[in-house]
């Protein structure tokens, strides 16, 4: 199966079929900070992805931060 990743954008091949939660573990990605998307739709953690699936693993962590104050 093909897995698209971002930052930097790249595509890798992963042996399937594989469950979503197992895929994230194999890639060493934290499930708290990543979602798996297939055809623009969210894929649940227990879904089995087929051998020829094409999915995007999307990081959900946003970058910069600064103190906010009324001063």
């Amino acid at each position, binding site marked *: 199966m093909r897995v698209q990743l971002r*930052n930097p954008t790249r595509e890798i091949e992963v042996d399937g079929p594989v469950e979503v939660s197992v895929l994230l573990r194999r890639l060493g990605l*934290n499930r*708290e900070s990543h979602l798996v998307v297939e055809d623009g*739709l969210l894929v649940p953690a227990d879904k089995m992805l087929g051998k020829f699936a094409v999915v995007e693993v999307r990081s959900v*962590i946003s970058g910069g931060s600064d*103190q*906010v*104050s009324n001063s």
Partner: protein
Amino acid sequence: MKCQVCRGPAIIDVRRHNANFCPEHFLRLCRDQTAKSIKQFEMLEPSDRVLVAVSGGKDSLAVWDILLALGYEADGYYLGLGIEDYSDTSLDHARRFAEGRGLTLHTEDLLRHHGFDVLHGSRAAKRVPCSACGLSKRHLFDEAARNGGYDAVATGHNLDDEAAVLMGNVLHWQTDYLGRQLPVLAAGNGFPKKVKPLVRLTERDTAAYCLIRGIDYLVDECPMSVGNKHLSYKSALNDIENDSPGAKHAFYFKFLAQAAGRFSDHGDHENPPVLSPCERCGAPSSNQICAFCALTERATAAVPIEIGPTRSRRRRVQR
């Protein structure tokens, strides 16, 4: 996985709630959690006009969408930061969201309206880009709210943002910041009220919310945020959350309930600085010239001016 509410097929697990949800009930969870925050922290009145600070990312579009779903009158405000293609793309996402729903989106551009971009601003002020960006946003959000007669500025800060800032403040014992790290900052001294309605939702929640709602948000990260220390705090907190679901929520909300009040007298909040109108822009400031106008002055002086080809370049072209 089955939805905790309807027992239909679940699409997402929310481990800190020890529950799974179908699309319909996950959206309801996000709206209910936002409504709970608004009520608990007395963020908004039903009649409030809200200005939503919109970046085109998942959090700001989610908070705008949720506030509208909860019945609030909410317009958007987008500030262009002049960050290469990133700013153009983020504006496209914000515009598409607003136009698709017939919403009002106010736009302003740092370079076009104030003569500098975030990169030059941060270099001139010897600040990191996120700091110059934050200073500009706070000032211009406040100004837009005052000029537009809005009761509050709403931002998309979520649980991950607040927990990461809290971790940074605790690691460095920034007690004056700890005393002010609240999900609502009251209006006063010429500043509008500021609210963070998404503090009960994680970044994973807001991303999932947008995916389920079909909100086309900007997924790519701001190129200026590379190396920002809050990213490492978020990563550390998510490692803890992975082993101990609910840890981020407990860290932040127990701080609010049990500790924030202990720092309220730090940073001389009892005797706040006397504010008077900035000589340049009229915004309330503790100095003659406010921090944003000082930044603008330094940054515009540092913006390179096109002076044409050098003598050696002209000679090369002539040859």
